[in-house]
C-alpha cells in the first residue's frame, strides 16, 4: 500500500493537518501536500480512469508532466475540470473528484471498452464509424462523447466566481525555471547589471536539486539554494516569482507567465490567476528535464510510477508509493530511488537493469545495501488490475519468456531523462539528437530569432541536455553570460560551488521492453497514458503508411491530450522510427506549441468579462435612455436606443408610436454617435473634392451638402452631411460606425499620398452631443428655447448657424433624414444631457417623443434615403442607388472615379435601386431575393434582385421596401415575386423608392 511515512517530507508541515474530500470522502493531509501526495498518503493510488478503455489509472509523476491524475476541482462557480493532482496544493475544504467513469471510480461500466481494446486500435474512429452515414451524428458520436473523454465541461449557466488579470512586465533577462540552473543563471545575470525576472512553476525553489542535489561546496544542495534565493531576493534588479509557469515563448522576446495566486489558498482576496505578458531582451530556459517511462506490458497499472517521482514523494512529502518497490531502469539515475526506498525502511525486491553491463558506482552501492540487482533484465509484464501485484521478469534481449515472478505493490521505472525543450522550441528553436544520452536537446546554433535577427532564447542546465549537476551549474553561468553579452552588458565572473559528480555508467536506450516483445505484450504497453495510445497503435499506424510523425500523431492521437505528450513523445517517435527502420532524427519531433501546460480560460480573458468584456460606448444622454425604457441596439461599440418601450408595449408598437408622434408633431433623436470630423486648411476643399464624389470646394460657408465617399475600388464606403463652417473649415458628418474608420482614411491619404497638402483633421465626434429635433413642431420648440433665429428666412433647408440656444452653446444644422421639418442641434457633450432634458420640458406641449434607431430607419426608408450597410454591402456603387446626381461630372479625379469607369461598373445589367410595395400590404422578409424565370447551372431558381431594406410603415399603413432589381428603374408598375423562407411568396409592385412626400414639401417649410 502507499502510505505516509513516520518521518521525512521537506515540503509538508506535520503540525498543520488539512482536511479535504475526494469523491465525497473526507481525507486528511498536511499543509504542503499536493493532492497527489495526500491521496497516496491515504492509499488512494488509483486516481482516474483512462480516456478510451476506462482502465484504472494511478499517479505516474510528481509534477506538471502528470498524465493520469486529472481531477474535477471545486463546485459551482469554482468548478474546473482536468486539474493535475500533482500540481494542486491542498487546502482545507478542497473538494476533488476523479474523472471519466460511471457510476464510480471503483466500478465503471465503461471498462467494457477495455475488453474490446483489440477492436479499438489507432484510427478506429475513422474506420469503424464511416457507415451508415447518418449513424455518426445520431448514434456513434453521442455514444463516444458519453463514454470517452476527461473532465466534464463547466455548467454554461454558472459564471466563474473568480477574477483574473493580466500584467505587462519588461525584463532584460527572463529566466524560466527556478531550479539550480535557473537560480545560478539569474545570479550571474543580475550581478552583471541586467534586470532579471525569474519564475518557477512550483511553490518551491530548487527544482530536482532539492531531492537529488547531493552536496555543493561540502554542504547539502538545499543550503546552497536557500542562500542563493536569499541573495537574489536582496537584489533590486531581480524579480522572483514562484507558482508562475513560463507558458509560452513568442516572437520578439514575448513571453507569457502564468501565475497562480490563490489556487493553494482560496481564502485569499484578489484575482485567482495573473497572466504576465512579458517582453524580455533575452530568455533563459532552465526548465529541467522530464523522466521517460519504459514501454512494457502493464506499465499503466496503478502503482507503476516514474522512478524520480517515487523518490520525490518520499523526500518531499514523506509518502511511500508502496511497501515493495521494484525498480526497472536503463540508467544509473533510478538507482537513487532504490536507495531512497531502502533508506525509508521499505523493501526493494529487485532492481532490473536493462543494460547487460549494468550500472556504475551507484549499482555497487545498491548491492552493498543488500539490494538484488539483475543486469540485462526487464519486465515482461506487470500483473494486477487496480493495483500492481507482481512483475514477471524476463531477459531484455529476449521476447518475454518469464524467468521469475516477483510480488510487489509498486514499480519505479526510468527510461532516462528528456530535456524540457518546449519553451526553447515554441518560437522556432531547433533541436538535435544526442545519441549518447538518447535525447533531443536544443541546437544552440539555431535559436529562435528576435526583432534584431539574433537569437533570444538560451537553454541552461538540464533543459540544455546537461544532466550532470556540476556541469549544469557551469552551463547556467555560461547561458547567463551569453545573455548578458547579447544585451551589450559585460558579464561579471561568478564563482561556482564545488561539486563532486559520481561517475555514471552510460544509459542504454530502451524503447520496448523486452526488446522482442510480441503483439500481445505490445498491446498492453502504453505510450500515451492520457489518450490511451499503445506501442501497437503506433506500429499499426506506421504499417498503414503514416510515416510522418505529424500524421502519426493525429492518426493515433499520441501526444494530443492535455499533457501534450510530455511523457510519451520521445518513446512514441522512437517506436515509429524503429518500425520505419530509420534513425530517430530522421523521424524528428512533432511541433511544441504553447502553452507548456494548460492555462485557465479566465487568465486569457483577464479583466475582459461581463461589463468590461468589450468597450461599450455611451452618449451623454445614455442614462436618460436607460431610465426611459430603451431597448438597446449595438452599433459598432456604441449602444443606441432602438426604441423606447412604454408600459407593456412591444418593440414594434413602440417604433410605430415614435414614428407617428414625430410625423404628427415632434420627435427627438439622440444623434450624438454620428461621426464629426473637422477638416481645416487652405487645401481642405481640394482634399474633400478627392474624398467625396461630390464637389465640396464650391460649398458656401454656412451651407450643408449631402456627400458620398467611395473606396479607391469605387464602392460606396460612407455618407453624411458636410458643412462648411468657414472659409477654411469643414465639418464632415460620417455614419455612426464610420467616424474612426473615415478619420483613419483621411489621415492615411494625407500622410501617405498628399503629404504636401495643407490640411489638418481632428475627430471631434465626442466633443458634441447631437440631437435631432424633428417634426412639424420642431421650429416651435426651438423658438420657445429662444436665442438663435431658426426661422425659415434665417435658416433655410441645408443651412447652418451657431450661437446661444436657450443658453446652450449650439451649432444648428437644418438637415433632415426623416423628411420632416427638422434640425440637428449640437452642443458640447457636457451640456448634452441638459439640452435633452430642456427640449423635453419645452416640447411637452407638443408631445415631444424620443425615438430610436428603428424609427429613424423606417422614416428614412419612407423617404427613400439609403443607409450605408443596408443598401450597400461593399459591392455597391452610387450609380446602383440612383445617386448619380451626387457624383460630380466636373471633377477630374476623386477616390473611386477611375474604378467606376471599369467595364462592369458601367454595365447596364447591374441591379438598380427601386421601391417595393407588397400587393397585399405585408412586409417582405429581410434579405429576400426576387426570383426570375428558369434555373441556373446549379439547379437553383434564377434571381433578378434582392431586398435591401424592408419595414412596416405606420405612416402609410403597409409594408414598404427598397431593393436592387435588374433594370429596376425601367420596370415601374411591374410586379416581382420574393419567396420567403416561411413558404409564402411575397408579390411586390416596383415603385419609386420615395414613398413619403416625394415633393419635399414637409421638410422645406
Amino acid at each position, binding site marked *: 500500500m502507499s502510505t505516509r511515512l513516520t518521518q521525512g517530507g521537506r515540503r509538508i508541515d506535520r503540525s498543520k493537518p488539512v482536511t479535504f474530500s475526494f469523491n465525497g470522502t473526507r481525507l486528511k493531509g498536511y499543509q504542503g501536500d499536493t493532492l497527489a501526495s495526500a491521496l497516496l498518503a491515504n492509499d488512494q493510488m488509483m486516481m482516474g480512469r483512462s480516456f478510451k478503455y476506462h482502465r484504472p489509472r494511478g499517479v505516474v509523476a510528481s509534477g506538471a508532466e502528470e498524465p493520469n491524475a486529472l481531477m474535477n476541482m471545486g463546485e459551482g462557480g469554482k468548478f474546473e475540470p482536468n486539474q493535475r493532482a500533482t500540481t494542486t496544493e491542498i487546502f482545507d475544504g478542497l473538494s476533488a473528484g476523479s474523472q471519466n467513469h460511471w457510476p464510480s471510480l471503483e466500478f465503471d461500466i465503461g471498462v467494457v471498452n477495455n475488453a474490446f481494446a483489440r477492436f479499438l486500435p489507432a484510427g478506429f474512429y475513422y474506420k469503424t464509424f464511416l457507415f451508415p452515414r447518418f449513424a455518426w451524428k445520431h448514434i456513434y458520436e453521442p455514444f463516444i462523447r458519453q463514454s470517452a473523454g476527461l473532465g466534464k465541461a463547466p455548467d454554461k449557466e454558472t459564471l466563474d466566481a473568480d477574477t483574473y488579470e493580466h500584467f505587462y512586465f519588461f525584463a532584460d533577462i527572463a529566466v524560466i525555471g527556478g531550479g539550480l540552473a535557473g537560480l545560478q543563471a539569474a545570479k550571474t545575470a543580475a550581478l552583471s547589471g541586467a534586470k532579471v525576472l525569474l519564475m518557477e512553476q512550483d511553490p518551491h525553489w530548487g527544482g530536482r536539486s532539492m531531492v537529488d542535489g547531493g552536496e555543493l561546496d561540502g554542504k547539502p544542495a538545499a543550503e546552497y539554494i536557500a542562500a542563493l534565493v536569499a541573495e537574489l531576493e536582496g537584489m533590486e534588479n531581480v524579480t522572483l516569482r514562484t507558482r508562475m509557469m513560463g507558458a509560452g515563448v513568442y516572437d520578439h522576446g514575448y513571453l507569457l507567465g502564468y501565475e497562480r495566486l490563490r489556487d493553494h489558498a482560496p481564502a485569499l482576496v484578489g*484575482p485567482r490567476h495573473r497572466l504576465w505578458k512579458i517582453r524580455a531582451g533575452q530568455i533563459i530556459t532552465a526548465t529541467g528535464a522530464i523522466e521517460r517511462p519504459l514501454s512494457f506490458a502493464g506499465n499503466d497499472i496503478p502503482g507503476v510510477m516514474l522512478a524520480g517521482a517515487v523518490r520525490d514523494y518520499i523526500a518531499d512529502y514523506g509518502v511511500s508509493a508502496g511497501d515493495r518497490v521494484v525498480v526497472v531502469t536503463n540508467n544509473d539515475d533510478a538507482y537513487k530511488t532504490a536507495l531512497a526506498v531502502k533508506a525509508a525502511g521499505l523493501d526493494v525486491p529487485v532492481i532490473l537493469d536493462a543494460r547487460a553491463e549494468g550500472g556504475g558506482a551507484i549499482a555497487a552501492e545498491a548491492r552493498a545495501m543488500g539490494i538484488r540487482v539483475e543486469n540485462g533484465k526487464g519486465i515482461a509484464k506487470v500483473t494486477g488490475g487496480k493495483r500492481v501485484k507482481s512483475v514477471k521478469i524476463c531477459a531484455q534481449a529476449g521476447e518475454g519468456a518469464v524467468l521469475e515472478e516477483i510480488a510487489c505493490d509498486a514499480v519505479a521505472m526510468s527510461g532516462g531523462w528528456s530535456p524540457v525543450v518546449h519553451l526553447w522550441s515554441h518560437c522556432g528553436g531547433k533541436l538535435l539528437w544526442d545519441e549518447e544520452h538518447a535525447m533531443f536537446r536544443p541546437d544552440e546554433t539555431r535559436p529562435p530569432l528576435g526583432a534584431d535577427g539574433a537569437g533570444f532564447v538560451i537553454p541552461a542546465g538540464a533543459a540544455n541536455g546537461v544532466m550532470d549537476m556540476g556541469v549544469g551549474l557551469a552551463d547556467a553561468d555560461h547561458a547567463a553570460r551569453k545573455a548578458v553579452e547579447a544585451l551589450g552588458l559585460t558579464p561579471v565572473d561568478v564563482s561556482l560551488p564545488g561539486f563532486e559528480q559520481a561517475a555514471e555508467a552510460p544509459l542504454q536506450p530502451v524503447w520496448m521492453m523486452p526488446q522482442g516483445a510480441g503483439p500481445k505484450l505490445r498491446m498492453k504497453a502504453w505510450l500515451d497514458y492520457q489518450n490511451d495510445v499503445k506501442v501497437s497503435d503506433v506500429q499499426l499506424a506506421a504499417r498503414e503508411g503514416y510515416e510522418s510523425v505529424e500524421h502519426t500523431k493525429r492518426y493515433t492521437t499520441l501526444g494530443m491530450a492535455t499533457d501534450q505528450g510530455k511523457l510519451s513523445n520521445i518513446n512514441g517517435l522512437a517506436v515509429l522510427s524503429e518500425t520505419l527502420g530509420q534513425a530517430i532524427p530522421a523521424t524528428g519531433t512533432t511541433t511544441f506549441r504553447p502553452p507548456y501546460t494548460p492555462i485557465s480560460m479566465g487568465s486569457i480573458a483577464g479583466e475582459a468579462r461581463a461589463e468590461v468584456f468589450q468597450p461599450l460606448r455611451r452618449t451623454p444622454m445614455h442614462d436618460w435612455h436607460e431610465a426611459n425604457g430603451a431597448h438597446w441596439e449595438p452599433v459598432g461599440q456604441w449602444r443606441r436606443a432602438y426604441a423606447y418601450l412604454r408600459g407593456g408595449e412591444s418593440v414594434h408598437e413602440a417604433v410605430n408610436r415614435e414614428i407617428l408622434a414625430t410625423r404628427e408633431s415632434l420627435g427627438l433623436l439622440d444623434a450624438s454617435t454620428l461621426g464629426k470630423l473637422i477638416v481645416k486648411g487652405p487645401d481642405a476643399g481640394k482634399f474633400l473634392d478627392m474624398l467625396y464624389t461630390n464637389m465640396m470646394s464650391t460649398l458656401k460657408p454656412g451651407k450643408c451638402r449631402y456627400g458620398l465617399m467611395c473606396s479607391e475600388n469605387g464602392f460606396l464606403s460612407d455618407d453624411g452631411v458636410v458643412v462648411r463652417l468657414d472659409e477654411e473649415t469643414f465639418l464632415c458628418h460620417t455614419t455612426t460606425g464610420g467616424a474612426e474608420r473615415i478619420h483613419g482614411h483621411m489621415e492615411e491619404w494625407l500622410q501617405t499620398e498628399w503629404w504636401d497638402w*495643407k490640411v489638418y483633421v*481632428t475627430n471631434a465626434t465626442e466633443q458634441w452631443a447631437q440631437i435631432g429635433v424633428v417634426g412639424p413642431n420642431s421650429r416651435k420648440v426651438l423658438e420657445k428655447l429662444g436665442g438663435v433665429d431658426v426661422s425659415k428666412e434665417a435658416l433655410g433647408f441645408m443651412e447652418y448657424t451657431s450661437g446661444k440656444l436657450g443658453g446652450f452653446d449650439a451649432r444648428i444644422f437644418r438637415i433632415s433624414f426623416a423628411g420632416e421639418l427638422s434640425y440637428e442641434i449640437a452642443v458640447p457633450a457636457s451640456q448634452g444631457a441638459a439640452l435633452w432634458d430642456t427640449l423635453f420640458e419645452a416640447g411637452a406641449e407638443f408631445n415631444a417623443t424620443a425615438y430610436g434607431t428603428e424609427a429613424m430607419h423606417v422614416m428614412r426608408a419612407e423617404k427613400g434615403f439609403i443607409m450605408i450597410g443596408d443598401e450597400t454591402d461593399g459591392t455597391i456603387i452610387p450609380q446602383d442607388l440612383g445617386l448619380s446626381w451626387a457624383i460630380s461630372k466636373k471633377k477630374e479625379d476623386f477616390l473611386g472615379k477611375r474604378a467606376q469607369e471599369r467595364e462592369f461598373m458601367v454595365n447596364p445589367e447591374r441591379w438598380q435601386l427601386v421601391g417595393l410595395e407588397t400587393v397585399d400590404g405585408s412586409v417582405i422578409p429581410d434579405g429576400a431575393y426576387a426570383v426570375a424565370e428558369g434555373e441556373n447551372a446549379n439547379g437553383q431558381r434564377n434571381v433578378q434582385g434582392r431586398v435591401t431594406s424592408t419595414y412596416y410603415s405606420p405612416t402609410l399603413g403597409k409594408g414598404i421596401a427598397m431593393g436592387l432589381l435588374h433594370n429596376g428603374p425601367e420596370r415601374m408598375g411591374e410586379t416581382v415575386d420574393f419567396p420567403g423562407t416561411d413558404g409564402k411568396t411575397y408579390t411586390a409592385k416596383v415603385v419609386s423608392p420615395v414613398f413619403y412626400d416625394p415633393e419635399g414639401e414637409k421638410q422645406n417649410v
Partner: protein
Amino acid sequence: MSEARSALAGARFAGIAHVEEAGLVGMISFRGDLGHAKVKSAVKAVAGAAIPKPRGVALAGATGVAWMSPDELLILVPHAEADAVVAKLSTALKGQHFMAENVSDARAVFTVTGPHAREVIGKLAPVDMSRFAEGEIRRTRLAQVAAALWISAPDSITVVCFRSGAQYMFDLLSAAAQEGSAVGVY
C-alpha cells in the same frame, strides 16, 4: 443653462489604488508647425509652459501642454476657458496653417493614485511602467481603448480617454485596482 457635466460625475473606487474621475478638464487639440516661432510663443502664452520635447508633458498649475506627435499638441486649460483659448490662438496665429479644436468634452479624465498606481496601469497597458517618468506622456491603449497617460504628482497617474468610454475605463481601472491584487514589483 445648467452646469456642464463630466461623464461620470466624479465616480470613485478605492482598492490597492484610488481611482477617481477627475471631472471636466479644458483640452485643445492643436495641430501646426511646432517649430515655428509664432506657434511657440502663442502656445506658451496660453499653456503657461513651453512646448515640451517629443513625448513630453509640461504642466504649470491649471494649464499645461503635451507633445502628441510631430505636428500635434494637447493644450490643457481650465474647462470654462477652452473656447476663449481657441479664440486667442486663432487671433495669434491668423494667416498661419494650424488647427485648434476644443476637445474638452470629447474626453474623460481619471486619476489613479497610491503606491500601486503604476501596477494598476501596468495591468492594462503594454507599457514598461517601471521606466515611466514624470514629465512624460505616453499614448497607448488600456485594454481595448486608446488612452494617454502622464504622472501628475508622485504616486498619481492621470489617464485620458474618450468620453464615451468613460464607464468602461472606470470599470477597467477599478478591476485592476481590486483589493488583494498588488503585484509587488514597482
